[in-house]
């Protein structure tokens, strides 16, 4: 199978997951609403809420992410390899050069964000810029640029907001149970009780399912971006070696949070914290060893 049909296939699959996700969100909101006795108004609130927050994340998501990570703009003189490599790969991909930022942190990592190639941002830590050779850095930047080219950066921003919305709704539901927000009448008590049980079950599994869906999108995305990076640089070994170095890096990136973890080229939580155990449970990235194996087989 050629890489072009593979890219097409993966993009289609991602869209299917996206649609299923939207249906799921609205369905859950509907069930929650009915079980609480509010009818369908809950669903409309969910739709409105997710549309508004999607809109916000669509236009300001990149700036929010950058502010959260404390990144500063890169310049050609100080970050020569980073700057020129990004320039070159943008030429190869036929994209405008993304805006470049540097996080002052010795942990090795990088991420991309932005709603489309014209508003794209690539961000790298000083650690990765210092420790990687030019060809290795090229692999990493090509990986990030592939996320931009495949519109993963937009997709992931939207998915993150959808997951956030579901968690928010589930939270609201649990609170309303505590405070007795239910107002059912005697005649539909039976139905209400069944819906209540279903509602509680959904409230528990929803955040888990939502997270898993987010991960499903995320893992496939990483393999696809690796393959596109190999196609772009014509040198899979560069990224493979970079990933090897990244595995050896045991440092935890302080700027990363649970909300931004899925954006990075490798999982930013490694080592000894609770976060490491948690992200091992819901891994946002496929195992690096597997990624290296696939790259070497190309």
């Amino acid at each position, binding site marked *: 199978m*050629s890489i072009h049909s*593979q890219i097409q296939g993966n993009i289609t699959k991602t869209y299917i997951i996206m649609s299923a996700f939207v249906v799921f969100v609205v369905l859950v909101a509907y069930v929650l609403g009915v079980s609480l006795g509010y009818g369908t108004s809950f669903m409309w609130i969910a739709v409105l809420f997710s549309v508004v927050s999607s809109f916000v994340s669509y236009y300001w998501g990149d700036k929010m992410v950058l502010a959260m990570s404390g990144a500063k703009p890169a310049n050609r003189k100080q970050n020569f390899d980073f700057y*020129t490599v990004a320039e070159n*790969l943008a*030429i*190869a991909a*036929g994209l405008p050069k993304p805006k470049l930022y540097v996080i002052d942190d010795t942990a090795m990592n990088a991420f991309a964000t932005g709603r489309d190639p014209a508003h794209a941002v690539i961000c790298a830590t000083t650690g990765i810029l210092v420790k990687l050779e030019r060809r290795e850095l090229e692999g990493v930047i090509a990986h990030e640029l592939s996320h931009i080219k495949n519109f993963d950066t937009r997709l992931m921003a939207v998915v993150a907001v959808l997951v956030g919305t579901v968690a928010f709704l589930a939270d609201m539901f649990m609170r309303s149970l505590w405070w007795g927000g239910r107002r059912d009448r005697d005649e539909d008590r039976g139905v209400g009780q069944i819906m209540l049980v279903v509602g509680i079950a959904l409230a528990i599994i929803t955040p888990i399912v939502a997270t898993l869906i987010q991960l499903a999108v995320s893992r496939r995305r990483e393999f696809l971006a690796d*393959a596109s990076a190999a*196609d772009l640089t014509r040198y899979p070994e560069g990224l493979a070696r970079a990933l090897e170095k990244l595995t050896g890096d045991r440092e935890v990136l302080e700027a990363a949070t649970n909300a931004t973890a899925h954006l990075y080229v490798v999982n930013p939580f490694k080592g000894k914290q609770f976060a490491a155990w948690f992200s091992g449970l819901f891994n946002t990235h496929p195992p690096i060893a597997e990624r290296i194996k*696939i790259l070497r087989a190309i």
Partner: protein
Amino acid sequence: MWTPLWIVLGLVLLVVFYFWSLYNGLVSLKTSIEEAWSQIDVQLKRRADLIPNLVETIKGYAKHEKTVFSDVTKARSAMMGARSMESKAAASDMLTAALGKLIAIAEAYPQLKANENFVQLQKELSDTEDKVAYSRQYYNNLIRDYNEKIRTFPNTFFNESLGFKEKEYFQALKGERKSVKVNFS
């Protein structure tokens, strides 16, 4: 009464729209190819502009390597004079080879290698070589897509009459990194 007429009219419109979008697709691809070509040109020129400075710097340390200098200068003026795509590709490869030799002799002069100006120029040069290679790769990718489109049905019927002809790749004689076959599922 009128239904068959509307159906026929709808079908005709559909066909017209289909061919119109095919035509537009080819035109925009052709425009991208022209842009990609001027990108290659920009990068080739950028590289040519770096050379006088580089030669001057190396001359300061290695005066007697005259043949290498004249080779580079000759290749550079051939590059500047080239007009057609084939001659540009050939001249570019000649220049790459000559520059390779130039950098190789620099290896023998430790003082030169320590020169900050030379180090910077060498970085700029290898970056520009990358830029040439990548703009060429992008151009060739577009040509591949374009030729593929032209060869497929139903474009084959009207491309000749509308002036869409298959285009040549920007060839590299040797050393070009091959396109990778990706097989992953």
